[in-house]
């Protein structure tokens, strides 16, 4: 049996569970039996106490996916499920005690497309919500906006050029 700590949609108290075989023991919630089948890599048919759940994982193939966060869809609703084993919880506590912090300092292309327009240049101060770049994809123009007030360090693309998904378009000063 392996111990897991699970947190669904940011609820305060995580669920603890001992997991093994086709049984699971939830701390405070009791024991359950289940059967399941992976219909595809991302689609799971799960039957708990005879009830069917068709659960789709929406982020399994994201390249930056960590194996502790799952965006799961069931009955057309999405839930963020954070699921850690004992080792991961320990590692995290250790990292937190050393005070690691990360800030997003890049504008990333959310999808493949072509740059129609760039509204900023190196050194510009931008405000949250400003349109930085207009990206055309699937016959629609999509505006990419600043997520926070910041300063442009470098623009890495040019107008009328194609870009890939997740390509870094602009770097900001932190």
């Amino acid at each position: 049996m392996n111990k897991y700590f699970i947190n669904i949609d940011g609820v305060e108290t995580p669920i603890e569970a001992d997991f093994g075989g086709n049984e699971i023991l939830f701390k405070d919630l009791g024991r359950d039996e289940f059967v399941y089948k992976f219909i595809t890599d991302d689609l799971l048919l799960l039957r708990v106490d005879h009830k069917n759940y068709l659960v789709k994982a929406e982020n399994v193939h994201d390249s930056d996916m960590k194996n502790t966060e799952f965006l799961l869809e069931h009955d057309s609703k999405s839930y963020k499920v954070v699921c850690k084993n004992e080792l991961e919880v320990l590692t995290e506590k250790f990292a937190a005690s050393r005070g690691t912090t990360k800030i997003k300092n890049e504008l990333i292309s959310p999808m493949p497309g072509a740059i129609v327009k760039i509204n900023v240049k190196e050194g510009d101060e931008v405000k949250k919500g400003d349109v930085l770049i207009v990206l055309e994809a699937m016959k629609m123009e999509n505006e990419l906006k600043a997520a926070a007030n910041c300063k442009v360090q470098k623009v890495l693309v040019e107008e009328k050029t194609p870009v890939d998904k997740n390509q870094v378009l602009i770097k900001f000063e932190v």
Partner: protein
Amino acid sequence: MFKKILIANRGEIAVRIINTAREMGIKTVAVYSDFDRYSMYAKLADEAYHIGESPAAKSYLLADKIIEVAKKSGAEAIHPGYGFLSERAFFAKMCEDNGIKFIGPHHTAIEDLGSKTKAKQLAVKNKVPVVAGTEHAIKDAEEAKTVARKIGFPIMIKASAGGGGKGMRVVRSEEELESALRMAQNEARASFGDDSVFIEKYVDSPRHIEFQILVDEHGNAVHLGERECSMQRRHQKIIEETPSSIMDPDLRHRMGECAKTIALAAGYYNAGTVEFMVDKDKNFYFLEVNTRLQVEHPITEMRTGLDLVKEQLKIASGEKLSLKQEDVKFTGAAIECRICAEDPDSNFMPSTGKLSYIGRNLGNGMREDTGIEQGNEISIYYDSMIAKLIAYAPDRKLAIEKMARALNNYTVVGVKTNISFLMKLLECPEYIEGDYNTQFVERVFLPRLEETKAVISPELQKALSIAGILFKSRNEKSFNGRTEKKKSKRGGWLSRKELHN
């Protein structure tokens, strides 16, 4: 009747046209880009010709190339579908000049009706009500300002050649005007190769109601009733239905007659759609004519029992309409939902990728029009529609129940979709009451969605916990470079033993 036709389109509408042609014993010729070499429609057609690279501008918009294929393959006529070259007068004329029948109106009618400004002039002349505004293309920002001041803000900028919400902008103050004009022109140029736009008074919160018409080359016209298309977001239709909850026989008759009048005045023939805005007091205003088949035409087919592509083919081959207005019978209620590859949680950003799984359960009363099969890819080159689901039932309530059931059973893996968004729309009280307009989604529904938080039952909490652990365990195995991942990719069974060994 034609023996062979070419379809100058792709995807679900190409499949739709092939089906009717085959039922009528007409051979079909498909044209395809690099991307579409083995797409469903290119597979289903009797013949298929490569016409260029994946971007539409290098394939589906190459009129010369398409005419060349039509001649080479011996196609007598060309069906343009919707989008691409379907509303380009020059293409209709090229067909004519090359002795190929264009399955659509005469090119002069496309020019007169396809241009919103000319169409508006025609409407005014024939006493069809219109909204105040310019009846010609705007020259520059100065003229735009003058017009806007005269009719008063808010105003609407619209592409003359437009459709599908492209090249449209609402402007509420003079400061916004210049940049909005530029963006509308840019979009119009990119989408239709024509950047002329015009301005009209913006009617707040109208309904968008359109009438399907059939007109033959002998001056006979019928209307096939309305389609309620007010469920929109950024002028993109989301759900269409017929009948409209605000329609009554008298209003239907008056709007239908206006629709026929304007088509006949333009010398139009073909199937076609006349769009109207309807305000709170049921005043209606002519908007524009779509001189082609609409995406949402199936709901009219369900409610009238007619096959609109068949009617188009009969009209194009010179036949007289086989039915008069009094022969058109309306039965039941039909609803269409467009299932699109887009992410409602990220501002409806289009989503691309390979569809590794499509699970359907249609059954009684559901129709699906699609050009996509499991294993296909949604690309950046074309629109993001995966399928149209159409529910048909004796009444609206039953149709909604069917649609909700079918949507709930429609599973797509590989891209994000708007399915859950559609389901929430179907369930909301305004939709169930039929009490909505073109502003409903953006002004009422989306803000409300953001406030709503899913309640998680203890049972679901358990199930999601187990699901999380199972995905995690599976991934850990695959990170370790074992073979299980490969096995499950083929959709096979992954036994508990395999997973936990």
